């Protein structure tokens, strides 16, 4: 075991996979010699060689397309899109190609591709460095979408994503790279080293895709969250003073319906929290799933706490960010019904 922040845990996952499997390649903008703008690939080129971890032109569509071709050859590429906000030029290659190749070739070709990309706000990134585009991927048949919320999960989930034979969008909540930010932006962030989930095995281990984690057990209300919002949700539960059960989904597609249903059947109440804009966000899908599967157990309307339906603002970052007080408000409303 070692103590790692999320960046170190992700780096360790890549290192383990580069060591274990000669078909694993890591590439993207600035990921080679420099080690990535967030340092996730630091030292990998030096350790594994130029052809295993290298820089690419600034061309996200090209990065993903080339990785698809490599996947068709039999490699297992792991690419970095520097910010999720930059992933849109690659959207056609992801949606029309990576997601569809197994289906359209009836299994003759497939794409074991992992696309890592830092996402989310809370870093004063303005509208082009703060977005949460997960719903653009969960809506597409043929790709998996994964979001870790701790160093331990990040490593185990990334290894699972790399070993998966289907394309995986791996969204890294960059606000919690260095510590479990709980939304209290006026307070110093506690580093990961003070958190039990920073205890990370140095070798190979996996967390299965499609398995959620109950990070706080509770009886009064279920809170569904992922990424940074897991920590914000915990803080919201504390602020509201309710006995909330907080579920970290970890994987959005496939989603762990059994864990969600078991919890909502127990609590009869559900609040969904995400940073992404509210309309047609992933929370809408979660809300529908809870309604379809747990209707007769529900004691209160399902609430969604989400980013406002505006582009992500710079100066008004904390007015936009769905922080613990907004979560707490929703929790109070829900338990009072």
């Amino acid at each position, binding site marked *: 075991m070692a103590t790692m922040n999320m960046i170190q845990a992700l780096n360790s996952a890549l290192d383990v996979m580069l060591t274990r499997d000669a078909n694993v390649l890591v590439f993207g903008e600035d990921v080679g010699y420099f080690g990535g703008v967030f340092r996730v690939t630091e030292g990998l080129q030096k350790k594994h060689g130029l052809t295993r971890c290298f820089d*690419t032109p600034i061309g996200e569509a*090209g990065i993903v397309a080339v990785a*698809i*071709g*490599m996947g*068709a050859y039999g490699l297992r590429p792991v690419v970095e899109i520097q910010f999720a906000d930059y992933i849109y030029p690659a959207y056609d*290659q992801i949606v029309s190609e990576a997601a569809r190749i197994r289906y359209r070739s*009836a299994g003759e070709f497939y794409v074991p591709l992992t696309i890592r990309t830092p996402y989310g706000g809370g870093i004063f990134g303005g509208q082009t460095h703060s977005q949460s585009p997960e719903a653009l991927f969960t809506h597409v048949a043929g790709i998996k979408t994964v979001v870790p919320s701790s160093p331990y999960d990040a490593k185990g989930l990334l290894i699972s994503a790399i070993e998966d034979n*289907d394309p995986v969008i791996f969204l890294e909540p960059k606000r919690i790279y260095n510590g479990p930010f709980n939304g209290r932006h006026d307070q110093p962030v506690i580093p990961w080293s003070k958190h039990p989930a920073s205890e990370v095995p140095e070798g190979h281990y996996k967390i299965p895709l499609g398995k959620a984690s109950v990070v706080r057990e509770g009886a009064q209300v279920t809170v569904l969250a992922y990424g940074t919002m897991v920590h914000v949700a915990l803080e919201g539960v504390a602020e509201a003073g309710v006995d909330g059960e907080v579920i970290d989904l970890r994987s959005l*597609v496939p989603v762990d319906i059994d864990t969600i249903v078991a919890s909502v059947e127990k609590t009869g109440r559900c609040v969904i929290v995400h940073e992404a804009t509210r309309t047609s966000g992933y929370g809408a899908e979660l809300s529908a799933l809870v309604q379809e599967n747990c209707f007769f157990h529900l004691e209160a309307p399902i609430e969604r706490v989400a980013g406002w339906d505006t582009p992500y603002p710079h100066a008004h970052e904390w007015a936009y960010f769905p922080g613990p007080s907004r979560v707490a408000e929703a929790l109070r409303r829900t338990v009072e019904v």
Partner: protein
Amino acid sequence: MKNTPTLSLHIPEPEARPGDEASFDRSALPPAGSVPRPPTDVCATTIRDLSFSLIRVLDEDFKAVGPWNPRLSPDVMRSALRYMMMTRAYDERMYRAQRQGKTSFYMKSTGEEATNIAYAFALHRDDMCFPAYRQQGLLLARGYPMLTMMNQVYSNAHDPGKGRNLPVMYSSREHSFFTISGNLGTQFPQAVGWAMASAYKGDTRIAASWIGEGTTAEGDFHQAMNFAAVYRAPVILNVVNNQWAISSFQGIAGGEASTFASRAIGYGFPGLRVDGNDFLAVYAVAEWAAERARNNHGPTLVELYTYRGEGHSTSDDPSRYRPSDEWKAWPLGDPIERLKRHLIGLDEWSDEKHAALGQEMADLVRDTQKEAEAVGTLQGGEQPSPGTMFEDVFEETPWHIRRQRQQMGV
């Protein structure tokens, strides 16, 4: 104030529209045999003029001349002729099947047969091809069963694609033929990635891809060019300039100001322009580019200068936007006719043998069609079971898709 004219917007227009006399006066054609053949390890910057010329082997008398003559044996040329005629007969039959309502859609490759069949001969059998939707001849020439192609076109129970794709979107890993996409140009940078993987693994196989000249306007074309250049990928990037992208002439894609082959100059690798209706010239260029790639000298862009003899697809009516006799005016003729006349000139073929081969191909296609239709067409007969719709979305079917399949009761 300066004395300048008012600005005017330029919209490119072709030389001839319906009712006009077909004309290709803009096409400057250097004589066959006049373009030099550089060594395959040549520095790209020294052969930029080749991007503006036209590599031709067969002259006006159908003789093979000049340094690009690949000196193929008569057996190989007869085999090439056979596959070009097979492809044309197949296209003819499938086009009619669509008109008879047996399938939804079809795309012919009439006039463009040499642009891909020559590659089946010049490349190794396991070199990976990333085709667009008009390279069916390549698949036939690699020995893929015509019956399976027809089953695909009919989306019947024997379609290996389980009836999921539009007709002509073939796929065959066994024949190193990548699954065809309907989205234009996406396969171009994928071919570069495959080639990079082959180089990374120390393999000997190379990749080739095809797009039309219209698709060079897509971003993926430029991504492919840049990545291929940066990583010196062992790949042949083919642009089939068949003059028409549905109803838009090649000037709309940017062919007025420069040639498509010349796009390679800015990226720093060879861009060769070749008579796409001359089987021997296409073969020679493919062989040159393959040797260059296989020896770690990197990519080549090839502009295959040809003419789309028929409509874009069965959904298109070219008489609405171009002269109906334009193909007859095409200065580079018909690839089948030219190879035939060449073989006859060598005393290796005859009109009688050609007519007999034509009949043999027509019979083959007719008999194969009967076999395919005995299984089923889009209209009826045996079709893939609806349950297969839910397969292959992922390697393992997740709960939500399983539940939807149960809901449908299949």
